């Protein structure tokens, strides 16, 4: 039996649920693996895990938000033969990764204002916060399985990898980014009929009656599909909700936010440029209130924008 440890970092629980929902496939995996740690599923103590000499497969879920997270991620990963970053937080920093723009102390200060309680972390015995990171900022995992939460497509691929590893003791590649290496547009169920995307402006969801057969961008709704890795079978889009980019960029290491900014800028009001001129276009672009939150909802921590922030802050 191989040893499988599932380590949760700063996590919302979605990844846990997704992994637990594997059901029969999980049973299949358990023919080869013994779960040595997974707080929500098995009653194994962390101290046991820390004492182990090696772990075969380590699945890390969630962002790194506390010193405890960072320590676990580093120490345990060193013992693991195969490291899996599961979920967008783990791979790209995810939504908690947006916090990376701020110092932990400032975040605590802001929360204090909101909850009207003095949050002296040490005094309350709270974990010491660190600058928010992705798991991939600490180690270089062999398997990257993004998704918020990880999708069936990604989990199926992960299952396959785990089973193959159990049987052959080998991985197919040094680094594997799960999902399909194309963007969501490739197999978009909307199957657009027109040849152009002349985006008619920027609309919020409540402002339009969305035609479920037409491209979101053509209807003025921001959709991150063009630059987002196809890790799913378009559940959001099928439910008439645009892609918000949890799959991350198509290629590991590239920057989907900048690409999407460029794509969007290109197609926005493309037929009315000479009529609206700069002021008219600016007025429309001002409807995007939060550029980082819009284009880097999930991937800020691993982006060039974040690198730029460090550069500007004199850190990094």
């Amino acid at each position, binding site marked *: 039996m191989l040893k499988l440890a599932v380590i949760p970092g700063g996590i919302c629980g979605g990844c846990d649920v997704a992994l637990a929902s594997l059901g029969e496939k999980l049973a299949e995996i358990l023919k080869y693996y013994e779960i040595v740690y997974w707080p929500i599923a098995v009653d194994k103590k962390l101290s046991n895990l820390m004492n182990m000499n090696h772990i075969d497969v380590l699945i890390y879920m969630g962002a790194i938000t506390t010193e405890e997270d960072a320590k676990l991620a580093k120490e345990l990963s060193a013992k693991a033969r195969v490291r899996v970053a599961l979920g967008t937080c783990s791979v790209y920093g995810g939504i908690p990764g947006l916090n990376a723009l701020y110092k932990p102390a400032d975040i605590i200060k802001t929360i204090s204002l909101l909850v009207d309680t003095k949050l002296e972390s040490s005094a309350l015995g709270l974990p010491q916060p660190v600058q928010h990171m992705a798991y991939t900022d600490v180690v270089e995992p062999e398997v990257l399985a993004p998704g918020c939460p990880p999708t069936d497509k990604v989990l199926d691929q992960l299952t396959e990898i785990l089973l193959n590893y159990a049987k052959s003791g080998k991985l197919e590649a040094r680094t594997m980014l799960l999902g399909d290496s*194309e*963007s*969501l*547009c*490739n197999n978009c169920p909307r199957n*657009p009929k*027109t*040849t*152009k*995307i*002349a985006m008619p402006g920027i609309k919020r969801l409540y402002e339009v009656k969305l035609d479920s057969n037409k*491209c979101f961008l053509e209807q003025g709704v921001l959709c991150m*599909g*063009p*630059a987002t890795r196809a890790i799913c079978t378009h559940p959001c889009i099928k439910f008439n909700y645009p892609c918000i980019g949890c799959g991350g960029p*198509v*290629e590991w290491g*590239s920057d*989907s936010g900048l*690409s*999407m900014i*460029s*794509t969007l800028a*290109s*197609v926005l009001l*493309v*037929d*009315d440029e000479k*009529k609206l001129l700069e002021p008219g276009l600016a007025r429309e672009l001002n409807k995007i209130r939060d550029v980082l939150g819009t284009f880097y909802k999930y991937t800020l921590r691993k982006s060039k924008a974040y690198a730029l922030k460090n550069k500007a802050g004199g850190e990094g």
Partner: protein
Amino acid sequence: MCHCGVNIAGTVDVKKVVEEVKKLPDVVYAADYVYLCSQPGQELIINAVKEHKLDGVVVAACTPSLHYETFAKAVEKAGLNRYVYEMVSIREFDSWVHADRALATEKAIKIIATAVAKLRGDKPYERARLDVIRKALVVGGGIAGITAALSLAKMGIPVILVEKYATIGGKMAMLHETFPTLDCAQCILTPLMAEVARHPLVKIYTLAEVDSVEGHVGKFKVKIKIRPRGVRVEDCRLCGFCERVCPISVSSEFDRGLSKRKAIYIPFAQAVPSAYVVDFEHCNRCGLCVKVCPTKAVNLEEKERVIEEEVGAIIVATGYELYPLEKIPEYSYGPENDVIDSLQFERILSVQGPTRGEVKRPSDGKPVKRVVFIQCVGSRDVNHLPYCSKICCMYTAKHALLFLENVPDGEAYVFYIDVRAAGKGFEEFVKRAQEHGAVYIKGRVSRIYKDKLTGDVVVEGFDLLENREIVIRADLAVLAPGIVSALDKRLAEMLKVPVDQFMFAAEIHPKLRPVEVASAGIFIAGCVQGPKDIPDSIAQASAAAAKAAELLIQGYVEKEPIVAEVDRDKCNGCRACVTVCPYGAIEIVEGKARVNEIVCEGCGACTATCPVGAIQLRNYREEQALEMVRAVMRVR
């Protein structure tokens, strides 16, 4: 690296630059020379390439606009492809604009570093040359289309002229006389119609529409759908027996509903082709016409057909329609209310028209004594058409003048916002109308209605200069509707003609290139580009013909190979590049983008747009661009 005498070497330490450039990655050989563009200078490059087996060359000298070609030739002579050579300007961008030797030297190194970085990603390409089919298609047989077709034919270029209706001639054929000279429209148009019909190089298809267009400049494959005429043109003798026996009577398009015609008819006497036509929509297939036709020219069984033509260039001259007056209900438009549009008034004035030139009320035939003209109906109004339709001021003056000449005891009132009479003889013409007694009222009409008791047309408005409401009881009201483009969306998309929000074709440059659109090989003439009078349409049609001939007579197009190319494995078919391409050079084929190399101009907008980096401008790939940026920063 060139000294350009002292032009560069006077400010830049050339020796130091050469030393530093030698340290750049992949630089095998670097040298300087006093005048690189001279014969020995060029030899230096050629020998270096051969001796050191170089696979790329950077020339740092004056500007590429001066000597790019010189060194490109030298590079080719050395056996290299010209696209693995880069030239950067040190003279214009550096030595001539800076005085500090150290700083200028450093900047020169940086500039050369960008070129070296770019060159590392450059690949050799060959120029494409494409033969052009020496034949043109003209869409629309109005005065613009006829002019363009004739002009091309006279230059020896075969032309296909496609017209939607049963006759060519367009709107001009409906006109009575033309401003400002009052030539009879028919007298000047019909000879041209006959000439174009007679010309051996012009093939006219009437009742025809473009069904599909494929291909690109030099080689368009065009499918033309031809509706059945029901009458063999060559056999029709215009005897009119068929018309007399036809039991069906419908309103005449040519007279804009002011008269009736039969289901077998000729649009007007001088129609081209000169033959009757069956209106299959209204024909009840009774067969009487077939029986009476002495030459057996009528065939009610004729079917629609589609023909295919290949042409090298296309001129779009689809003309205009009038703004639909139903959209302005307060003006009670309709002949039954004696409120008519300007083209209907042209028909009334015409001796061939429904009233044989007598100005009578359409509703009851009563002679018209008092007529009110209203300008800017729909035009210059953000609620309808924000633009000025340009010709209404002039034809309204013409209408008023012709009416007053026709009915000497008549009264003509013209409601106007401004009178726009910019054109040779135009202002004088308006004055002439006014001298004839046309009363111009500055102000707008709020409503028009038919007084059912008296039969009068009541026009209510406001006279801005008299500062009071004004009500005119008239016999007839003539509206001057705005001009709208007759170009339909499907045709525009097929031809990749960019259009503005009013479906007027957008020329590629409003000043320098007024008859070309962004899609190469497509030209525009007449009202498809915007409202125009006859001389303007003819001038533009002649220009479009000249531009098309430029292309067709040369016989080929040569293309720089520096165009975009698609990595089909990466492409996600999102269509962003198709949207952003100003030339319609990209299309989606089997779910992925494909670049038409002949049409692409190499601007690179698609490369910056692509969300997944699948489409790249050759030799200006994203990675090259990033490397250029990094190279500058690497120089210390």
